[in-house]
Structures are given as structure tokens and as C-alpha cells.
């Protein structure tokens, strides 16, 4: 379903399919027709379990699907340009400059042999073609902006000398130094302790807002999206099953899977009993060509097993991919 992008849409994904071949069995279809529009200045939360395709989507936007995976079909438009048509050189200019990524576990993802100051400065140096001195000064200012105490000393620190929260701030500095228009946060705060996590999230939100950038906030924690995102999208088995404004979503979750996630969070036995199937009753309904969630769904009907549901809007700005959305 190709919607015409609104004028203010910065990222437009249409019908994106990505698969990874598996030896001796059918390929894993990590993404099965993702449609997603992100408007300028908007922060959209993408929630899914492990293996639902969240990280693959992030890498697909960056045009960095790891081998042997590949994009089977679909298009990703960033600021009106089809990313798949760009040369490696042009993509390199976009990565880290226009589209930046905030990663989890920064202590293993930062280069252990390079000081963090240099790692921040490098990004500015190559993208903004700055001389070394100016890039260093900019990196220093960035360290200050992400509220790292004593930035002068930290500039010369190596990643292993930083705590998890500090390293996370460094990664944010790297992501924000070129004032990107679009930021992808891939489960970025999942490695942090809760008391530190909220500080980091608030800082990230402030900085992104200051720069007027858009953000795709990928997470396993549906709780975070309630407090930090404008929109929420739920991804299941490589498909977006529900997407809505945050308030609309949490006031009125419509997809049985969304409801199941929320009820699991509550630990309320009655709610969980209502919305989830016990593991031994779960069946694999994928082969039938119907709804991918049908095998685990408490509301599944015969239609669900045969017919693949399309994304539809029951009310404006709230889409759900379900034959029997929850109505209240």
C-alpha cells in the first residue's frame, strides 16, 4: 500500500522485504513488507521481541544488511532520495552525517585502541571536512553537551576506562556531532542500569529535540516508548502489526499482540490468562499464508489462518493489521 509521502516526511519505507538464507532450510524472512513513514521532528518507537526484525530494519535503513542477508524488494526513501540507488560513496556521506545510529553495549562497539575524543572528532573530521584542530574542539564541545563531567580529561580516555553510562553518552556525542536529521536508536539503553537509563534517555530526548531531528527508537521495552515517543509501532515477525500516536495506542491498543505484550507487563494472572495462549497450545500457522500471529492469538478465527490481514485504519492515525481488532 503505497501512500504518497507527505511533504514533511523525512523517511519513507515501502514494502520492505529482507531475508537471510539458512543452510538446508527455507530462508528466514526477517522483514516482510514494512511500510513506515517518519515525519520531520517526530520520534517513533518501534517495539518488538527479539528476532522480530527490529535490528534488521535499522541496518536496512543504513543500507548495511550483514551478509548473507539481502533486501528482496521494497524501497527506502530518505529526504526524497531512494537509498538503494545511491553509490557506496554517497551512502557513506549519509551515514553518520544525515542518518546516525545510537548503539547498545558501546563498550564493545567503540574502538578499544582509540581515545573517545578522537573517535568523536573523526566523525566530524570526515563528514564536515574539518581540520583536526577544529574537529577536536567540536568533539570537546559535544562531550560537554552530553554532560560528561570533566570533558578535557575524558577526551583522552579510552573506552575501557569509562562506565557504561559514560560510554553511552560518548556514543550519543558521536551520533549527534554532525547534527543528523534522522537518528536510529537500536535498543540503545538496554545495557544500562535503570537509574542511569532514565538520565540518558532524558538527555537523548532533549538533544534530539534541540537539533530538531527525527528519531526511530527501537526497543524491547514497551515502557520506554510510553514516555519518550510520539508514535508507537509494534513489530511482530517482520511485520508492523499496529501503529498509532502514543496516547491513542496506550489508551486503546487494538492488535491482540499489543494487548498481549501489555498484559504480560502487568503480571496480572487474569489479564495474562485472557490474552496469551499457553506455550503448549501455540501452533505454527505461518505455512497457511494467513496472519503470522494467528498461531499464538486468542482471537484467531478460520479467516485468520487463511487470509493475511492488511493494515487498516479504524480511526485516523491508528493503523492495525488484524481481522478482529480489539474494540472497546
Amino acid at each position, binding site marked *: 500500500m503505497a501512500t504518497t509521502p507527505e511533504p514533511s516526511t523525512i523517511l519513507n519505507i515501502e514494502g520492505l522485504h529482507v531475508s537471510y538464507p539458512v543452510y538446508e532450510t527455507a530462508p528466514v524472512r526477517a522483514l516482510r513488507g514494512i511500510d513506515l513513514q517518519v515525519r520531520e521532528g517526530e520520534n517513533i518507537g518501534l517495539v518488538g*521481541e*527479539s528476532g522480530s526484525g527490529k535490528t534488521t530494519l535499522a541496518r536496512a535503513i543504513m543500507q548495511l544488511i550483514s551478509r548473507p542477508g539481502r533486501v528482496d524488494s521494497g524501497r527506502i526513501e530518505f529526504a526524497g532520495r531512494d537509498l538503494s540507488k545511491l553509490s557506496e560513496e554517497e551512502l557513506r556521506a549519509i551515514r553518520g552525517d544525515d542518518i546516525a545510529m545510537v548503539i547498545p553495549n558501546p563498550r564493545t562497539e567503540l574502538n578499544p585502541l582509540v581515545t573517545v575524543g578522537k573517535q568523536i572528532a573523526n566523525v566530524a573530521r570526515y563528514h564536515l571536512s574539518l581540520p583536526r584542530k577544529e574537529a577536536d574542539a567540536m568533539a570537546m564541545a559535544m562531550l560537554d553537551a552530553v554532560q560528561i563531567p570533566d570533558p578535557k580529561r575524558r577526551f583522552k580516555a579510552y573506552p575501557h576506562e569509562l*562506565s*557504561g*553510562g*559514560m560510554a553511552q553518552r560518548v556514543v550519543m556525542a558521536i551520533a549527534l556531532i554532525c547534527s543528523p536529521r534522522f537518528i536510529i536508536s537500536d535498543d540503545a539503553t538496554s545495557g544500562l*542500569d*535503570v*537509574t*542511569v*537509563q*532514565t*538520565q540518558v534517555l532524558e538527555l537523548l530526548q532533549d538533544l534530539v529535540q534541540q537539533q530538531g531531528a527525527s528519531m526511530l527508537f527501537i526497543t524491547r*521495552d*514497551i*515502557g*520506554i*516508548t*510510553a*514516555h519518550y515517543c510520539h508514535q508507537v509501532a509494534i513489530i511482530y515477525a517482520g511485520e508492523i502489526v499496529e501503529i498509532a500516536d*502514543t*496516547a491513542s495506542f*496506550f*489508551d486503546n*491498543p487494538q492488535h491482540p499482540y499489543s*494487548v*498481549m*505484550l*501489555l*498484559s*504480560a*507487563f*502487568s*503480571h*496480572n*494472572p*487474569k*489479564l*495474562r490468562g*485472557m*490474552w*496469551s495462549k*499457553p*506455550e*503448549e497450545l501455540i501452533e505454527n500457522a505461518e505455512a497457511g499464508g494467513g496472519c503470522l500471529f494467528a498461531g*499464538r492469538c*486468542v*482471537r484467531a478465527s478460520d479467516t485468520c489462518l487463511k487470509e493475511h490481514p492488511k493494515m487498516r485504519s479504524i480511526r485516523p492515525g491508528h493503523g492495525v493489521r488484524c481481522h*478482529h481488532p*480489539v*474494540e*472497546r
Partner: protein
Amino acid sequence: MSVVLSVQNLIKHFPIAGSRSVVQAVNNVSFSVSRGETLALVGESGSGKTTVGRCILGLIDPTGGEITFQGNRIDKRNNVRSRHLRGKIQLVFQEPAESLDPRIRIGVTIGEPLRSLGSAREDRDKQVREMARRVGLEEEALYQYPAELSAGQQQRVGIARAIITDPELIVLDEPTSALDPTARSEVIDLLITLQKELDTAYLFISHDLSTVRYLSHRVAVMYLGMIVEQGSSQDIFSRPRHPYSIGLLSSVLLPNPRLERHSEVSLQGEIPSPIDLPNGCFLASRCPFVEAQCSERMPDADDIGSGHLVHCFKHRDVIDDEKGTLDYYERFQAEAEKLLSSGQQ
């Protein structure tokens, strides 16, 4: 209630290679667990909660303090591997896949603890089947290898292996944090059911507050190797008194945008390094209520009723009881129930 495990003034310091300083992982921890009870050790990474569990299991030797299990003191000589204690204390790990030998069939893995108890092979087979049934594994799974099972099933195997020796105490080290929400709640339900059937004591080590809230009878909040507050689950979650507990509880983001967090008690900065800890309260550098005496000496435990212990000089001033808004889990539950219990076909 009979006390199964009692820990007194437990200390564990890890030496640092090439240095005279030590990592002060556990500092003076005392608690006890009774039959059929779940005590949760809650804390962030580096709070020493896992180290406490490993000391009890004899996987590391404590630096000081006393661990008593059913009246027997546990030490280097006399530990969980000794004949009279064997199989009485069991454990379940966080990473279900890593806790099973990838080359050994599930059935053999579940039955292995019986081997050292010297039970006959036929007997073992029967028990393995029985345990599999109890944890909800199909018989077919007994012939499979760990990689062929889902994470939730793997964790069930881990639990079956733990309960097969009919232990008095199970140390559960973050048994659910690697699982997806649905599998997680099923494993939690299983643990609760088994506890009711077997009357086992659980020491539940976790950083996941919502699970702790649901599963445990009592909670001990750990920070930098100390228990800063302990009490009944009800007390800790709805009337926390230690600034750290409050900060920790209000940091959790619940999936309801209307539930505002208490930012007035939010903790500043990061957890200090557990090397060369200060003399005073460990939280002094992050606490919004800090005063002079906090950085001079460590506050003693203050019993504020029914076993609710707080290590804080200012716990009376920290929170305004009248507001009574702290238990936002409670409010979340209420709202969730209102919202989600309608609409099923």
C-alpha cells in the same frame, strides 16, 4: 516458619591483579530465607547480588561472614558439594542456553544431579519423566538437544534439573531476564506453582522490579554490595524509605504515558566504582537528601516495623506519606486491568 538459609555479615572482596586494592563486591550483607518463601535480592549490575548467590552455592569463597543452611554452617570444607548437603541447594541461571551442555540430551541433563546422590538408574528415569511432566516439557523433548528447544523450554529444563533433587533452597539468578515477555510470565507462573507444591525456599536474584513485585514475598534492595533496605514486598513497593529504593522504583518506565514518575527523588550521576568505597553512606554522592553525617559514617539499620529495615539517617524525611502516590505499580495495575479486561470476544 522455619529458617532455611541465614546469611550473617557476608563479605566478599575480589583482589585486583597487580594492585593492593580490592573490589568490594559484597559488604556486610545479612538476611534469611524461610521455608516456602521467596526473598528477592534486587539491585543494578555491580550491586553484588549475583556474588551473594555464588557464595551461598560454594562457587566462590566468601571473605568473611557466616552462611548457615538448616543449622549447618557452610564453608570451604562443608559446602553444597558435601555428602549431607548435596542436592539440597540448587540453582537456575539467567542464560537458559548456556546453562545446558549443548552436546548432551535433555533427559540426561535433567537426571544428572541424581547421579551424585547414588540413585538407581531405573529410578532416575522415572524421576526424569516425572520432572519433565511437572515443568511442562513433552516427553519428546527428553531426547532432543538444547539447541532444538525454545528459550522458554530450555529454562524449563533448567528448572527441572534444579527440582529433581527435591532441594530446600533454589537460587534463581535472573531466571527470566533473557526471555521474551510471554515466555517470561510462563516461567514465573511455573516457579510459583512449583513453590506451592514443594514448599521450597527461593532466593530470587533480579534487577527486573516488575517480576520481583509479582513473585516475591520479601525484598532486599542492594546497592554497592550492601542491603540498603529490606522488608516485605508490600512495604518495599508501596512504602519504600531508602532514597535509593525510591530512585530505583521511580526509574522504571511503565507502559502508561499518564503515569508520571517522581523526578524529585531521582538519583544524580552514576554508581561509583566498588574499589575504595567511601567511609560514609555509599549513596552520599548521588542522594538528593544528603547531609554532613552521611559522608562521615555508614548509617545502621533502622527497624521501622515488621522487619522493614532501612539504612538511612534521613528516612523519616525522605517521603511524604500523605501523598501516598509512590506505588505506581499499583496504579498501573489498576489502569491496566480497567483497560485490558474488556474487548475479548
